[in-house]
């Protein structure tokens, strides 16, 4: 039994230097400060000309040790740390922790809480996807979509801010309820927004989807067949693009997702175009969900436990997962009966979605790598945690 521990330097100095004639392979460093790695992801690419031969993702440039911090804070305090992981689905992340705690304690919530949670989760999904659409355009080289995406996200951000009191890191869903009740004109504004966004999505389609350049650059680029997608542990839109209808909103039906009509969008090939199109379609589905729910939010309390109540989970393992905008977020808690978790672990969707790139991008060009990274929709603080 031998276990060989490698280092990064070993890998980077593994080039075939003996070859003197002909094309040589070379390493190039992409990141951690590179506009299209969405933050601080770093790739080391082994290139031949512009064709990628090997791709080595290097992580840890934003590894803050949230799981270690989580071991010393209370469960309620851990909720706000999850905001800072995947900041585009921060409310959904909050929900994942709350759901784990509520399941462990068998805490019953009322319909109003679940409805509000569902609405806000879908709002986050739209926020995330509009933003992603803009960044996708930017990565392909079109600047204007970036501004349009941010513009449409901003309207929603201001609506959310009115209720949650924050724009990005909401810390809104708490174990046993939501932090604040919805504001009086929330329903009016969100209805207006739905009316506003529907034509905007058509505009998105006109600007990006119907563009020949985009179609040429996404079709058959980065194909991820369903077996590979499963083996790589991809979830969310990435897995659904490969044709597997795994959506915890349908399969696990938490919240009030079982009471609303919506369809799980799946792709056929699993290429970049499918991943692109699924997100566009999911925006429409999310709008439908909100539209069905927003008119009849049941009456009731917005919090079933007091915020000051200290939470102690029973000894043992507790686990639950939830569908964020990027895939399945699992919260795994090992409790020893104390106020703070003995060990808390986040199954990050981005971390698991990332690795399929080592297979997909090989043999393609740098531009294709940019497209693929963009369609995987990675949030690096969630990858590193």
């Amino acid at each position: 039994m031998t276990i060989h521990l490698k280092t990064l330097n070993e890998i980077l100095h593994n080039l075939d230097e003996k070859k003197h004639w002909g094309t040589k392979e070379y390493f190039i460093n992409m990141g951690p400060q590179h506009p299209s790695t969405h933050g601080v992801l770093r790739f080391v690419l082994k290139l031949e000309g512009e064709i990628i031969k090997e791709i080595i993702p290097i992580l840890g440039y934003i590894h803050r040790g949230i799981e270690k911090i989580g071991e010393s804070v209370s469960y309620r305090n851990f909720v706000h740390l999850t905001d800072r992981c995947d900041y585009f689905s921060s409310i959904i992340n909050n929900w994942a922790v709350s759901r784990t705690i509520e399941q462990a304690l068998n805490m019953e919530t009322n319909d109003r809480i679940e409805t509000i949670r569902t609405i806000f989760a879908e709002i986050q999904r739209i926020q995330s996807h509009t933003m992603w659409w803009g960044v996708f355009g930017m990565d392909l080289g079109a600047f204007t979509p970036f501004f349009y995406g941010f513009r449409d996200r901003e309207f929603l951000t201001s609506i959310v801010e009115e209720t949650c009191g924050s724009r990005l890191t909401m810390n809104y869903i708490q174990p046993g309820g939501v932090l604040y009740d919805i504001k009086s004109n929330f329903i009016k504004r969100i209805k207006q927004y739905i009316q506003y966004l529907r034509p905007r999505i058509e505009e998105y389609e006109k600007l990006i989807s119907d563009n020949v350049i985009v179609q040429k650059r996404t079709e058959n680029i980065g194909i991820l067949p369903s077996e590979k997608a499963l083996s790589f542990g991809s979830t969310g839109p990435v897995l659904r693009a490969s044709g597997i209808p795994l959506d915890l909103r349908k399969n696990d039906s938490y919240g009030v997702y079982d009471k609303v009509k919506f369809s799980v969008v799946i792709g056929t090939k699993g290429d970049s175009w499918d991943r692109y199109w699924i997100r566009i379609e999911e925006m429409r589905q999310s709008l439908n969900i909100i539209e069905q729910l927003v008119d009849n939010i049941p009456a009731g309390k917005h919090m079933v436990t007091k915020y000051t109540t200290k939470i102690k989970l029973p000894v043992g393992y507790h686990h639950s997962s939830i569908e964020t905008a990027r895939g399945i977020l699992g919260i795994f808690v090992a409790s020893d009966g104390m106020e703070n978790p003995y060990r808390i672990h986040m199954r990050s969707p981005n971390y698991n979605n990332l690795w399929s790139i080592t297979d997909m991008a090989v043999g393609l060009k740098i531009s294709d790598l940019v497209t693929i990274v963009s369609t995987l929709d990675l949030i690096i603080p969630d990858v590193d945690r």
Partner: protein
Amino acid sequence: MENLNSLSTNNQAVILTNLEKILNWARANSLWPLTFGTSCCAIEMMMATGSAHYDLSRFGAEVVRVSPRQADVLIVAGTIVKRMAKPLKMLFNQMMDPKYVIATGSCTISGGPFIYNSYTTIRGVDKLIPVDVYVPGCPPRPEALFWGILVLQKMILQNSLFKNKKKRYRPVLAALPEGICIEEIHSEMKNILKSKKYL
């Protein structure tokens, strides 16, 4: 912050003073930021630079440069961890003079929510690179970032280019009503950390 008049009138030739004024005006009004964002604050920074609602281009600062050689201001947005420290220092060193640093968000100012029990988070980016303006918030709103940029512009306008070349202005915290000196905050933070009474 020091007064503009106290610096510029002393024993200097009129031409130099005017040249200085013109150059400072040019530098203050053309702050090209570097694309550097690690986490959540980067989104609010992008919201400021790249969104129709806020539009940093009004101040001429929307020309986001990817190459540190061409950038003027490094907006450190997001937590800096040990592994990122080296690239960050490198980026700062690669930037050409005159260069300015704005630290946005509590993570870059002090470590923020990751200050305790984190084995990687660097508690304050000013341990690595000199910071000119601190913008508090978690994450700061785009308006707060604008405030920081306006404060930086004021600081640049007061620079003296020829007389005290190496003079750095005391870094300020861009918070209401006037910039608070960061030294006060540092001493306060040290006290808090020593006493461990916080949280």
